[in-house]
């Protein structure tokens, strides 16, 4: 994805954090079509604040009917202004399914391709990354991440070489389920990475204490996985009415409420909810429009969800 080249430095990110209460009023968080974008701190390139996760939902193997259905989900995603599609070889067949969908859609220009390397050795990591390029039908990924920090030192070495040669644009690391935050924090402090990915949502908020401020301080883009706790959070809130104050955050449904909570954190670059349904995709992507909650409203939102 090619965006404006304006650099967003550490100072600007920290200033953004300080200005969080006024975020809902800041036009710089929106682009011309009204969809929320966020800058990648290391380059200033802007990407849509909502992406697409593929854990389980795109693991449909070579079933032609299900592949066609996932292609429609991808089509809806891009039509609604989506950019980042995130996957991993660990997920099973999603990379092949994404590659099938991208080919069927004529390789949409808005794609920000993100996948992971997940092997215990550097040699196998290179082979796996080459395989990911084949499966997605890409000559260059936008982002390669070390999945769950597995053999991260070796893979970051490879990724630094690939980035230097232009084979990948950004590199990063991931964890999920709130695990291994100490190790991730140490890597954020000491390594020249562009992205981090971890879990954050209205009830899993450990990242607020350390990882989110640290990433902002170091100028590292943040991808949020499991914004719905893999659906459990939606199940938890769905039997309750949406509170009246949701309108202040521009949320008309619970998924939008939960997504707006996540992407309104000033250190968050992109959240990657997963879905296998076109109607859910439309509902999710609507969270890219309208106002965002400020800090006070975010606190109220989190307290309300915790009380349910």
């Amino acid at each position, binding site marked *: 994805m090619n965006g404006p080249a304006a650099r967003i430095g550490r100072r600007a990110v920290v200033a953004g954090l300080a200005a969080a209460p006024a975020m809902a009023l800041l036009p710089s968080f929106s682009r011309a079509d009204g969809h929320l974008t966020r800058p990648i701190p290391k380059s200033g390139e802007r990407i849509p604040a909502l992406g697409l996760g593929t854990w389980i939902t795109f*693991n449909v193997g070579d079933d032609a009917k299900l592949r066609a259905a996932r292609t429609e989900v991808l089509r809806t995603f891009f039509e609604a202004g989506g950019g980042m599609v995130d996957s991993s070889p660990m997920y099973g067949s999603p990379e092949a399914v994404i590659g099938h969908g991208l080919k069927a859609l004529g390789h949409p220009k808005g794609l920000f391709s993100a996948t992971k390397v997940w092997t215990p050795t550097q040699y196998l990591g290179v082979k796996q990354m080459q395989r990911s390029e084949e499966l997605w039908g890409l000559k260059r990924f936008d982002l390669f991440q070390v999945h769950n920090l597995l053999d991260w030192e070796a893979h970051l070495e490879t990724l630094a070489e690939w980035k230097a040669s232009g084979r990948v644009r950004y590199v990063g690391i991931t964890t999920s389920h709130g695990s291994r935050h100490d190790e991730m924090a140490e890597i954020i402090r000491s390594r020249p990475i562009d992205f981090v990915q971890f879990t954050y949502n209205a009830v899993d908020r450990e990242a607020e204490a350390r990882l989110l401020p640290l990433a902002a301080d170091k100028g590292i883009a943040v991808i949020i996985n499991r914004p719905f706790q893999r659906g459990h959070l939606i199940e938890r809130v769905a039997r309750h009415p949406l509170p009246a104050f949701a309108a202040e955050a521009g949320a008309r449904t619970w998924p939008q409420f939960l997504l707006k909570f996540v992407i309104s954190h000033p250190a968050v670059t992109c959240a990657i909810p997963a879905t296998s349904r076109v109607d859910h995709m439309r509902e999710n992507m609507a969270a890219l429009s309208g106002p965002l909650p400020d800090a006070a409203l975010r606190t109220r939102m989190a307290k309300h969800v915790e009380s349910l």
Partner: protein
Amino acid sequence: MTTVERLIPIDRDIYQSIFTGYNGAIWPAQLLALAAGIVVLLALLQPSPERNRAVATALAVFWAWSGAAFEIGHHALYNWGAWVLGALCILQALLLVWAGIIRGRLDFWLGFDRRGFLVLALALASALPPLAASVTGRTFAEAQPFGLAPLPTALFTLAVLLAATARPPRYLLAVPVLIAVAEGGLALGLGVPADAALGLSVLVTAGLAFRMAGSGR
């Protein structure tokens, strides 16, 4: 969130579609496997050294197919853990070849006594999932096929080992137990009670095979 949910990249729908795709791809191998299973039971009724080896060969083929064709050739497309399960199945095939064909340590006899009826009942249970699928709200194609997927193969193998005239090597019980724990646990975690029950049946039968096989003959 359960441990299974955290580790397994599939949900209940994908689990079902894995078997739908597999059953569609291998049809009519299911009928051949059922026929082979009946031949194995008939061989137990009138055993001979040659027939004992043929029984071991048939079981080894079931395991090798389950490992190579189902786990590695199909299931691994969706779930990286299937590589491990496939390797275990192939190991079990090799152990059956070693114990039953090379060492000749598997002798069988199936009589019309209590144990004989137990063996027949368990063998029938291992072939039941496709027939029972409609009762549990699934289609025939969503069920684990007899002899061509690990859980039915494990149950049938242990049923046959119950008919052994001498206590079979304990190492023949290890892989079925591991498969039952892994695949039965997966089915339980994903909310597929029929397959979870199949896994539980394997564990119970492994216990019976460990205690009873070869005794009192």
